[in-house]
């Protein structure tokens, strides 16, 4: 069960908001880095059905969430960066368990890919060598 290109684009926007990259004064590696995109390829190829389904539901709910819960005429990707973060913060503080688990699930997937990348590990002080690049992150 592969994500559509639209879902993939939405997901990378959420990831970029969760971990902004160096271009916007953020982390050494952005949440929508090419390595993360390769991770999504691997995830789609290998993940069991249920988590992948959960991921897709989370992408839809977060992307369309501002229309529903914030009554804004914009999807998540169209919000200003600060508003995107504010929306994620609000969602993760929700009184509704399933809602606050959505960003947790997405962040878990993101961290699984992003923090396996040597550049991200180096940025938090982990000594790594280039050879340690995960197989899925290597250019095909």
């Amino acid at each position, binding site marked *: 069960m592969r994500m559509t290109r639209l879902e993939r684009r939405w997901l990378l926007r959420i990831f970029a908001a969760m*971990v902004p990259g160096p271009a916007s004064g*953020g982390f050494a590696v952005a949440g929508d880095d090419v390595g993360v995109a390769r991770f999504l390829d*691997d995830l789609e190829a290998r993940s069991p059905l249920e988590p992948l389904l959960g991921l897709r539901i989370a992408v839809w709910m977060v992307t369309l969430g501002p229309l529903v819960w914030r009554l804004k005429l914009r999807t998540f990707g169209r919000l200003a960066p600060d508003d995107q973060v504010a929306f994620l913060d609000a969602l993760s503080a929700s009184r509704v368990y399933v809602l606050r688990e959505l960003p947790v699930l997405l962040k878990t997937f993101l961290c699984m890919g992003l923090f*396996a990348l040597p550049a991200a590990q180096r940025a938090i002080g982990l000594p790594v060598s280039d050879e340690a690049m995960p197989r899925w992150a290597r250019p095909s």
Partner: protein
Amino acid sequence: MSGGIVEGAHVSGRALVEDACDVVIVGTGPGGAAAARVLSQAGLDVVMVEEGPLVPVSERPRDMWSAFARSWRSMGFQVARGKGFTPILQGRCVGGGSPINGAIIHRMPEEIHATWTREHGVDERLSYARLTAAFDAMDAELRVAPTPESAWGGNNRLMAEGLAALGWSGAPTNRAVDGCESTARCAQGCPGARKQSLDLNWIPGAVARGARVYADCRVERVTREGGRAGGVVGRFRGADGRKGPRLVVKARRAVVLAASAIQTPLLLMASGVGGRSGLVGRRFQGHPGSGVLAVFDEPVAIWDGATQGYETKHFWHERMKFETVGLPPEIMASRVPGFGKAFVSRIAEGKHMASWGTQVRAEAHGRVRRSILGGPSIRFSMTPADIRVLKLGLERVVEIAFAAGAREVLPGIHGMPDAITTMEQMRAVHGLPDDPRLFHGICAHLFGTATIGRDDKTGVIAADGQSYELPGLYVMDASVFPTNMGVNPQHTIAAIAWVMAENLAG
């Protein structure tokens, strides 16, 4: 017969693989491997069947995603449903959980065994003296020893310092590790093969004595022969998930299920065994746990040191045990709160974070059934009393962190601040509802679902491990545990299987 390990790729293109033996063992984790060790040593012809793959040391990955994909059940995504979702972590590879767990070794507490004897039908066939003899033998074979100070690293050292400052007892964790290289990569599979996981000793030992191991093969049911368990049938799967040939194994003497507290009851159900008691899949128990990240001024470098090298059982009688958990960077990052620049500024301090947790000897009982998709459906929720134990455990872990000099703690509890700097802030946890959905917990120690009992009304299995309903069918894994124990179970699972296998071998 010459032994060997047969993987799915070795038999692709064939329609059927057949074998015959004295004893077929389903599962290669601590229970199955211990049984294979004892039975093959006793001269019996053994076949082992493992659903997961063989993961050679040279192929153990550095990153957690690849490790999840290769060696963990459902890629680490298996959950129990209840009031919330609880991740249920299991290994799924040759060696079971042993290649990817912390190699923590504890003997079953004697008072737990006394309860089993008094209330659950455990008798002299599984006496504490017999278990102790097995523990002694296994300690020697698996090179069990306390984690040496040279392998502590910052994460373990700081817990030791915090406990000492509070006057609470603590100790370097006993582990089955020979010469730890301090890579903190237990969860990915020890890259230097220092951890004495069972794929590196008991299983190759059994193979050297003639055992055959069929990997990548899921057993579907137990077959019958003349009113007894007569073997198993299963199906190989390729790395791409495609169906491979069928496996048919005939067992002259016994079929041993050692597939874990989740998979064993499903196999019993699929084989039409255990219905008389109505207990198959019931009495599922665990040690759910949760943890905190503590931020220190000094570098901790959680990735440099034994993954789980220090612990305390100081409050064991209050149903809690605390231990260090050297999280891989991917998991640690996912536990750091916040999004955007707030997250970025916190994760930049990753080198200064320690990770410690509490496991709870939960009173809650859950249930394992087959889902409509064919896999397990697990129901489990901590009781309000369990949640209160968890809260107190987390409070005490935070107290250890501050006693060790933590600047702040990231508790990861819904309804509390992202970061706290005082114990007063932490004690606010007791004002929160007793609701499991407020905590991010996991459960990695799983028990029950085919329990020992005095008879076929009170249990599925007798104290010798044999089914009350189907002669020749044995269960030798954590399914037989009538209760949980409050300590890490690998050694006890193996010891129980060891003694049961000795009884079976005669």
